[in-house]
């Protein structure tokens, strides 16, 4: 039993340097996730500010409309379909880096969810805080930046961490555009060795390890931010 497991390990990962697929795939997955998270935060932040400004003051009506449209389209369609549309339709006639396509697709997608998370954070801050800021002479932007946002961020951190875990795992559909991410790496090995167990379990364990590390980091950040509560 142990011997056959060892043999299977060798065929799946050592022979023909197959572990390189996994390593390179992991690199692609991490790169895509990292840049998608950045894009997601930027888009999410901007959309959330527009939306909550409209909710609070009634200004930015047109922009709010665009943001709502964006949220509806992105949240209303599956991310795989968005990925395929960006690759085969929007960049239909050009040779574009697949990593870039994936970063755009997942960043755009994540932005919609992050926007709603940020908005819930902003709306969760009592209006009194806002009025206090204004009465101290801060203008709208300053109040937002110095009083509302720091509190809101602390409130939404768990939900934000959750969204990024989801994003990391969602990138596993990148294989649809033949991008060799971690999942595709497992698929390639599977198509060479016809063994399902080893490649799939290995890929699953790597995702799990990444999520665990990330959860730990978010928890540490949460604890640090909490320390100012006392």
């Amino acid at each position, binding site marked *: 039993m142990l011997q056959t497991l060892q043999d299977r390990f060798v065929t799946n990962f050592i022979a023909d340097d197959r572990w390189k697929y996994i390593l390179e795939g992991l690199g692609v997955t991490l790169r895509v996730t990292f840049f998608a998270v950045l894009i997601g935060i930027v888009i999410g932040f901007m959309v959330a500010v527009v939306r909550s400004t409209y909710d609070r003051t009634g200004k930015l009506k047109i922009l709010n409309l665009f943001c709502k449209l964006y949220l509806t389209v992105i949240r209303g369609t599956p991310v795989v379909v968005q990925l395929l549309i960006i690759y*085969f339709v929007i960049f*239909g*006639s*050009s*040779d*574009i880096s697949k990593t870039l396509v994936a970063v755009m697709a997942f960043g755009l997608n994540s932005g919609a969810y992050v926007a709603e998370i940020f908005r819930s954070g902003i709306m969760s801050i009592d209006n009194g805080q806002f009025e206090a800021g204004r009465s101290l002479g801060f203008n709208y932007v300053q109040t937002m930046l110095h009083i509302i946002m720091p509190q809101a961020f602390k409130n939404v951190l768990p939900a934000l961490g959750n969204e990024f875990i989801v994003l990391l795992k969602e990138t596993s559909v990148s*294989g*649809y555009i*033949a991008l*060799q991410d971690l999942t*595709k790496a497992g*698929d*390639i090995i*599977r*198509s*060479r060795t*016809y*063994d*399902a167990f080893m490649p799939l379990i290995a890929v699953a364990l790597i995702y799990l390890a990444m999520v665990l590390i990330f959860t730990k980091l978010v928890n540490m950040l949460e604890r640090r931010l909490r320390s100012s509560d006392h």
Partner: protein
Amino acid sequence: MKMKKLVSVLLVAACSVSLVACGGKKEEEKKAEEDKTLVMATNAEFPPYEYYEGEEVVGIDVDIAKAVAEELGMELKIEDMAFDSVIPAVSSGKADIALAGLTVTDERKENLNFTDTYAKATQVIIVKEDSAIAGPDDLEGKKIGVQLGTTGDLYASDIKDAEVEQYNKGFEAVQATMQGKIDAVIIDSEPAKEFVAEAEGLKILDEAFTEEEYAIGIAKDNDELLEKVNKALKTLKESGKLDEIVAEYIKADAE
């Protein structure tokens, strides 16, 4: 109150008895059914060997499998799946036979038994009409699209400095060539013809990439079925039925 309890206990007992009875019967039926059905694993995105026509999977492989099943007195059931799942499905016993334009290779022989071959095929190269690639030798250092796990994929990985992109579906690789994302596609000749007929601005190079033969894959430990299928194939070959099936689809292409 007491009465209610008693009734409920009885009800539960009755239910569980009937459940057990049902379960037993179903199992038996299932077993009998299993003996009579021949499950075929395939990837129905590979015209003219297997593809969807409406809701049904049709094609050369499907008709051959039907004919074989008829010879064996069994009923054919088709399971459509991703190409790279076809071989594991058969070796793990989820399906009985694999017909998916499956080329016999040494690597695959380690995981499956193959019947006698039933069709010849070539791997061809699809490029844009204005492409500078004229033959297999020009593929060095190029971006080549393939379908994951196909023989084209295996061969492409051996080309020097080539960047191989493994698509889940063959037509997606063809589409990527049309859009100029990749330089060429290596794929089986018959589906290639269909793709090029549908897609504009593409051509198949005259010089084939490799020649190979298709066979039916059967699980390693199922020698009995292997023997039976081989016998059925032989009958079909001798009666000319096999050529008939192939001619029906391949001729239809030329028109």
